[in-house]
């Protein structure tokens, strides 16, 4: 589904990704871990198409297409979803409006009929229950005045509504207390399916207690140094990242 080969990217003259390789198949859940500044968020941003990053080398293919050649909205319509580390506030634009516009853009791409307001409301109500969100939130401005936890839950709600094929979760666990983390994890787990791949970027093992990954990758200094199963995350929790770097440089 997602095939990244020798990906190099930089901001200005600062090189951040220095040859990332990653294969993600449908149904898989991948966790990308690594120390601060290792390039985790850059990887997510480059895949979603955020401006300001220059890809200098390498490729990323999504369902056989050159992902990097597509506009961000085109990626989204084809089923790529990025849950933001810092969801953006858009004052005066209500949540329901953005979400309906987004859903209809995706549906149009999939050859489905666009939903009207009533059909949309019916669809979203169940999903909101799952995320334990009050209906009043629909008429509030996009992320406007939301707490950190509300913003993250809103991201997962959007994911639940848009039903992406490839979901990139950028530090979705950061800033969440344990209750909010559980709600978010329940939401993500409910979206696991054989057709959908999930790539989680996180600092901490604790998210992986709730969302069990098939693969854990360690990203450090712009490269994936080690790949393992969920036991790798536990080992990282105990031993930190330095031993991975040392082993990699020894090899």
């Amino acid at each position: 589904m997602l095939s990244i080969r020798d990906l190099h990217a930089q901001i200005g003259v600062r090189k951040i990704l220095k040859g990332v390789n990653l294969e993600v198949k449908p149904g898989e859940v991948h966790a990308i871990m690594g120390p601060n500044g290792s390039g985790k968020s850059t990887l997510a941003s480059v895949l979603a198409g955020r401006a300001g990053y220059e890809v200098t080398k390498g490729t990323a293919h999504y369902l056989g297409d050159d992902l990097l050649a597509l506009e961000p909205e085109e990626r989204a319509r084809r089923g790529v979803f990025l849950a933001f580390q810092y969801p953006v506030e858009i004052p005066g634009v209500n949540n329901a409006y953005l979400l309906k516009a987004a859903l209809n853009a995706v549906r149009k791409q999939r050859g489905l009929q666009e939903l009207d307001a009533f059909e949309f409301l019916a669809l979203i109500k169940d999903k909101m229950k799952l995320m334990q969100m009050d209906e009043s939130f629909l008429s509030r401005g996009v992320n406007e005045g939301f707490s950190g936890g509300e913003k993250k839950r809103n991201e997962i709600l959007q994911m639940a509504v848009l039903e992406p094929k490839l979901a990139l979760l950028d530090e979705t666990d950061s800033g969440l207390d344990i209750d909010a983390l559980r709600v978010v994890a329940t939401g993500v787990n409910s979206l696991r399916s054989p057709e959908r791949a999930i790539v989680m970027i996180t600092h901490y093992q604790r998210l992986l207690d709730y969302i069990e990954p098939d693969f854990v990758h360690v990203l450090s200094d712009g490269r994936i140094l080690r790949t393992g199963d969920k036991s790798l995350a536990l080992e990282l929790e105990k031993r930190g990242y330095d031993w991975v770097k040392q082993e990699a440089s020894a090899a």
Partner: protein
Amino acid sequence: MASTPTDLDALVAQKYQHGFVTDVESDTLPPGLDEDVVRVISRIKREPQFMLDWRLRALRHWQTMANPDWAHLRIAPIDYQSISYYSAPRAKTDGPKSLDEVDPKLLATYEKLGVPLHERARLAGVAVDAVFDSVSVATTFKEKLARAGVIFCSFSDAVRNHPDLIEQYLGSVVPYADNYFAALNSAVFSDGSFVYVPQGVRCPMELSTYFRINAANTGQFERTLIIADEGSHVSYLEGCTAPMRDENQLHAAVVELVALRDASIKYSTVQNWYPGDENGVGGIYNFVTKRGECRGANSRISWTQVETGSAITWKYPSCVLSGDNSVGEFYSVALANHYQQADTGTKMIHIGRNTRSTIVAKGISAGRGQNTYRGLVKILPSAEGARNFTQCDSLLMGDKCGAHTFPYMEIKNPTAVVEHEATTSKIADDQLFYSRSRGVSEEDAVNMIVNGFCKVVFKELPMEFAVEAQNLLAVSLEGSVG
């Protein structure tokens, strides 16, 4: 002054003797402005003596005045002697013969705005004799108003049929000496609207220039007078979201509102005159004086405007709050794209006790547009317990446009409570990226963000107007990103 329609020909001929050249086909006075021109206008309109006298006083005053230059605008000098000040309603032969002859760009705009087909021809100035749906609508509409006792007619009709009301109220809110453009308008105004709502009557429908027959020919110096008698209520809609064909570059309109005790007037404007092309060539100069007086206790005047058109906008819809407990409101969205310039805002003059005013102004600048908010809150010593709240926000798109804010406050009573909030923001790249990463196109994302910014103003507009205003903003911002 006794004159009949047949005098028109004689009059035109007579003027010819005085050196005028008259193009018979278009019935347009030759360029230039002096007392003779004013006399001709007044005679053509068969006005009573008091009107002519008033026009002449205005002209004489105007001749002593200088073009104002205090606004934050760059205006090429206007040669007032090169303008023709009267043009008879145009013959139905000088416009395009059918929609096929109309500029396809204009038609594309109508399409995007969702203007009904039969409307497009009228707006584009197509000379067709077909009876539009709107005519029959207008007829039922007039009957309904007549039953309620509401007078709604052209200003010229009002001068002839209700001279007492005109004499009593004309210039009572905007005196002819008020400012340069008001004086000019008072001398030469062509036509406009007149509304009188009798005591205790709630006007049964929104009044709109659209329904007033001949509204298309009110010309460049429009004059509107609305009187809401005690305990009455009226909502008036001016303008149209669709761009209108117009050959006059200078528009200097005057609008006067009078609200008597317990009366309320809601005045909504959507202005979309030709803004010039993307290089700043052409476009309308829109120099408007709009003012309402809350003359009676507990009265209320509310201005809502969406200004997207014109090359230059100079406009400050204001409220004089004379009556105790009266309320003035101003809600504005002004957009300046390409080379457009807007200097707009309001004045709230608090005179009565416990008077309240609210100002919400949203300025959007894009391209090389320059957008200025200019507002005055004046609290006189008599205005015990007055309150004002002002919020003015600017949104910038790109790095070649400008937003400017000039709030003035004159507080002469220590019990006044005045609040002012102002923000300036750019459409942030991360807002755009966030929306796009949800599948929304860049253009739709810009529209969504801008509409969110304007939401508090749009909700003051009558429902159907609000929807049109949103579409209008979208069309006006086309191509401003990317």
